[in-house]
């Protein structure tokens, strides 16, 4: 089964055409107690098919302990958008609607190695020297 219509697939292909460098999507799943996991996997498999700059790595949350530790994920489904490095970008849950748009945008910006945040905001982060963990709770739109 495909999650996207042919028209939607074409829109995603067009969107991803602006990718510069390769992006790896790392996905953590588990067999039990994760209702959304199968559909997230299907979504990611469909998306990575649409650009030759995208790859997908899938790990089992309960089995691949070294990867769980490396990426510091604590729940599933977990999606990491990694480019030249792991920028610390995570999605937990099924990225639908607005969140799917955000996923595509993240892929583009990670591929370019920079966000398109205005310079005056970026410069305010220069003095940051201690860790910040942001958790943004959202619902599907």
């Amino acid at each position, binding site marked *: 089964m495909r999650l996207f219509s042919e028209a939607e697939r074409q829109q995603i292909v067009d969107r991803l055409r602006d990718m510069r460098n390769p992006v790896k999507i790392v996905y953590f799943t588990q067999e039990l107690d994760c209702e959304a996991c199968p559909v997230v996997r299907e979504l990611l498999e469909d998306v990575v098919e649409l650009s030759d700059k995208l790859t997908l790595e899938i790990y089992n949350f309960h089995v691949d302990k070294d990867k769980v530790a490396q990426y510091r994920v604590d729940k599933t489904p977990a999606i990491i958008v990694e480019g030249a490095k792991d920028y610390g970008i995570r*999605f937990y849950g099924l990225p639908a609607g607005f969140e799917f748009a955000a996923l595509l945008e993240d892929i583009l910006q990670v591929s370019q190695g920079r966000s398109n945040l205005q310079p005056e905001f970026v410069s305010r982060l220069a003095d940051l020297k201690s860790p*910040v963990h942001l*958790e943004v*709770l959202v619902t599907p739109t």
Partner: protein
Amino acid sequence: MLLAHQLAIESDWITADMIEATEFPDLVRRYAVSGVPKTVINETLWIDGAVPKTEFIGRVLEGAAMAKELPSVGP
């Protein structure tokens, strides 16, 4: 795009999770989420709703300053 993710790209000190609230009821309870978006900073500070970028970043820097006071936190 999610501002929190943009900040994560721009600073090595920032990690940013976008969490689908309905799939994680435990977190919704822990953070007493009554509306979205809700942004939780280092599990202690939070931002309710969508706020202007400058205010959001100010709050993030405030959270970082608090973390600095805790010697057990950080790499």
